[in-house]
């Protein structure tokens, strides 16, 4: 059984929590300064503005995180609950109905935080957690301001348009990720896009993106999240199309933007539904509270969360709206690392984490414990992993890998492993940024080509630093212990509860199988990338060279972190270190207090599952390795067997074509769905029109003609025509008289107007 009651809570405070708005404000200022004065002030050193602003934001974020962590660590569980004073009157801890609700709305779902919150899904969970001690949870710190008030308070049917910051474990974690990756990407970019024709523009948009993402992360209301969501979409559009002179790039930017529009509509509708369902409020905590306490019905939550899910699908590249993400690789590589791997694409995952009660209750399929989210995530991680095998372009492999890993996160959130999902988000941001920047470094060396088969191979001799960091990050992605990805991936697999003895929130065996298959596929396609890029013989035509320090140092930092960050959340049961440093991530960042978060259980770690998953990954990697090793022995420039199994077996050939054609989804969208309206559907409509509608209309017409003749002869000619003719004659006569007034002489009109005015004035004076 799950932990039966909500965890006790405590309040935290710090100058940094109350002034968190500074973090997005710094890059926003940097955007304006770079764009307006950057070139004039600093010329080609314009990147210093962005570096300084993002660096300062990084320092602020780290300070915020440290003060958060130290207060969580320093909390004495025995101490009596006390409330913290905030120096800013607009700040408060946790959900406070009275602060942002009116009295009328409170009556709807008056809560008692001390009462155990009984939840529908709590009864569904089967895993056992009887012995688990319940940690006290820190309450989020909200600083909310009213931008403007429309039509009275919420209770009177009006709406408050708020803005504010919400600092809790989730946003603190994300602040550090965004500012940190953004800072490294800024450093990387100073070398990578040096001498670009729109250097200033590039850095301005990097700053704007960072500001928007931080704004989104800190948002305290759904409306604000919507604004941040759209802003990052615009920045993504602008940066994908950075080299818009090439039509492919501007097409990719448009595709990304339009696909995201599909989801954005879902977000907008979802926000509106939740606004009304939670009693005229945009406040995230109020909405979560209403969802947790059952003030919003299951049906409403389902509709709202399905709308939000459309947004998640488009932004976080879930099947079937993922097609824009691989094309988005047309943008500069550092942009791909920052936006399309580490930060923007996880906005959807972040949204789920932020509105977790809404998704968790809304998407659980009644009658079974399977969450729609888990299924969607499972399909995405399998599909993305499969597509990664057939790409020639190193960035596209990584893009499909990102899709696959995002699926993993959605899957984790779907099975109730919130912490595992967020932890994977955290580790993935680091090692995937490292991989993308590594791909950028490789392409920098190979004359800006990303084609693994034509222009790479054997690069480990030429660029050892890139090679080492890339291999470490790939190992982390593939889940090789003790690298970061192993711990987070393992937690997700455990969280599915499908493996015996893990006891998660449910018993999702199918999801576990999907996760294990994906783990195997991940290891295999990363081995393929490493072989094609770094091993074998060099197949390109330029002389590759190791990149400069501004490229390799960020790589080394990220690779180093990819080794260690996994230890943030090792299981308690791990020998030697588990007791001291186990589950710190969960302790620091997992929400839970204040009845704004569902009571979720934590699965028990399983050594047998960890060993099995690792063996699976190593096995599939070895398989691919052997394939290329044998191929290389045959022909040292070959990249695939041309005369063997794949080429000759029709079934395999068909599967390969299916993957190369990306499951025909692009054809579905542009050819079938868009084409249907142009061609076949139009013809079908025409046929229907000719044969069905016209027949009806013909007969109706014939009847009408008969009726019409009758009416014409007796009614029309006699009665109506007489009247019409008479009125015509009258109109014509009066027109003849009046046209003399219409002389075209402007002074006559003026005279008439003034005369009439004078007359009117006289009437007024006499009458009043």
């Amino acid at each position, binding site marked *: 059984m799950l932990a039966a009651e909500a965890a006790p809570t405590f309040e935290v405070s710090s100058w940094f929590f109350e002034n968190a708005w500074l973090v997005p404000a710094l890059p926003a200022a940097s955007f304006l300064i770079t764009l307006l004065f950057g070139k004039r002030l600093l010329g080609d050193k314009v990147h210093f503005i962005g570096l300084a602003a993002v660096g300062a934001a990084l320092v602020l974020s780290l300070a915020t995180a440290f003060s958060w962590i130290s207060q969580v660590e320093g909390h004495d569980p025995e101490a009596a609950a006390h409330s913290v004073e905030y120096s800013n009157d607009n700040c408060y801890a946790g959900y406070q109905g009275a602060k942002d609700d009116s009295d009328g709305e409170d009556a709807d779902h008056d809560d008692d935080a001390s009462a155990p919150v009984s939840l529908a899904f709590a009864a569904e969970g089967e895993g056992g957690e009887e012995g688990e001690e319940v940690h006290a949870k820190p309450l989020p710190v909200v600083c909310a301001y009213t931008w403007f008030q429309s039509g009275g308070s919420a209770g009177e049917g009006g709406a408050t348009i708020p803005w504010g910051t919400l600092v809790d474990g989730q946003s603190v974690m994300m602040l550090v990720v965004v500012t940190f990756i953004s800072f490294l990407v800024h450093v990387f970019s100073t070398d990578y896009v040096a001498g670009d024709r729109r250097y200033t523009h590039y850095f301005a948009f990097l700053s704007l993106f960072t500001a928007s993402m931080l704004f989104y992360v800190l948002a305290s209301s759904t409306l604000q999240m919507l604004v941040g969501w759209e802003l990052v979409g615009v920045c993504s559009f602008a940066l994908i199309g950075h080299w818009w002179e090439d039509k492919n790039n501007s097409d990719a930017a448009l595709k990304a933007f339009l696909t995201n529009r599909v989801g954005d509509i879902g977000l907008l509708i979802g926000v509106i539904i939740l606004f009304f369902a939670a009693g005229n409020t945009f406040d995230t905590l109020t909405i979560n509270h209403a969802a947790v306490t059952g003030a919003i019905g299951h049906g409403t939550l389902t509709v709202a969360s399905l709308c939000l899910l459309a947004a998640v699908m488009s932004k976080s590249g879930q099947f079937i709206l993922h097609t824009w993400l691989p094309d988005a690789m047309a943008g500069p590589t550092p942009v791909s690392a920052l936006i399309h791997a580490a930060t923007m694409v996880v906005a959807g995952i972040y949204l789920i984490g932020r509105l977790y009660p809404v998704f968790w209750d809304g998407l659980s399929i009644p009658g079974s414990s399977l969450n729609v989210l888990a299924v969607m995530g499972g399909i995405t991680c399998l599909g993305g992993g499969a597509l990664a095998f057939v790409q020639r372009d190193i960035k596209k492999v990584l893009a499909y890998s990102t899709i696959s890993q995002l699926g993993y996160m959605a899957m984790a959130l779907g099975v109730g492993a919130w912490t595992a999902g967020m932890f994977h988000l955290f580790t993935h941001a680091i090692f995937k940024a490292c991989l993308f920047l590594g791909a950028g470094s490789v392409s920098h060396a190979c004359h800006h080509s990303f084609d693994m088969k034509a222009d790479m191979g054997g690069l480990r001799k030429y660029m050892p630093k890139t090679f080492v960091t890339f291999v470490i990050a790939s190992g982390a992605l593939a889940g090789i212990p003790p690298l970061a990805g192993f711990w987070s991936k393992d937690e997700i697999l455990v969280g599915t509860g499908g493996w015996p003895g893990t006891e998660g929130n449910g018993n999702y065996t199918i999801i576990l199988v999907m996760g294990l298959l994906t783990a195997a596929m991940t290891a295999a396609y990363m081995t393929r990338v490493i072989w094609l890029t770094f091993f074998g013989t060099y197949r390109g035509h330029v002389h590759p060279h190791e990149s400069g320090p501004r490229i390799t140092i960020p790589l080394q930092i990220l690779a180093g972190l990819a080794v260690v960050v996994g230890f943030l959340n090792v299981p308690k049961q791990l020998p030697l270190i588990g007791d001291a440093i186990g589950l710190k991530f969960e302790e620091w960042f997992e929400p839970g207090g204040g009845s704004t978060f569902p009571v979720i259980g934590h699965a028990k770690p399983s050594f047998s599952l960890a060993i099995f998953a690792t063996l699976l990954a190593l096995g599939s990697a070895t398989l691919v390795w052997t394939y290329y090793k044998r191929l290389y022995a045959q022909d040292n420039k070959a990249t695939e067997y041309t005369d063997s199994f794949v080429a000759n077996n029709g079934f395999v050939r068909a599967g390969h074509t299916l993957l190369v054609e990306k499951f025909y989804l692009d054809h579905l969208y542009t050819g079938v769905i868009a084409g249907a309206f142009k061609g076949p559907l139009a013809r079908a409509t025409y046929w229907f029109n000719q044969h069905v509608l016209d027949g009806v209309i013909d007969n109706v017409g014939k009847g009408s003609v008969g009726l019409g003749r009758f009416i014409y002869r007796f009614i029309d000619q006699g009665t109506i025509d007489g009247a019409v003719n008479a009125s015509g004659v009258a109109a014509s006569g009066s027109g003849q008289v009046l046209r003399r007034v*219409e002389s075209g002489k402007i002074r006559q009109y003026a005279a008439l107007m003034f005369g009439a005015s004078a007359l009117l004035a006289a009437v007024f004076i006499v009458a009043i």
Partner: protein
Amino acid sequence: MWLNQFLFFAAVLFSIGVYGVLTRKNAVLVLMSIELILNSVNINLVAFGAYNQDIAGQVFALFIIAVAAAEVGVGLAIVLLIYRNRRSIDVSEADLLKG
């Protein structure tokens, strides 16, 4: 404060303006007469505003000045086009809208 003087003055100005609009043939002079009419209204507004100790009258007067400037801009453009087409700005000749 004497309000009547201002009202009387404004009424005289208004009448001169109306007379100008009705009798002048030259389009530019017609426009100038319209300005007279508008300014007589402004005088009324300011006078009443001062009389009632209310800023609104002056605000409206300023508003009317701005609108009048725009109106003259459009009016002069029309006059210019009429001149280009007919080599004359006699308003009594521009009667193509005759019914």
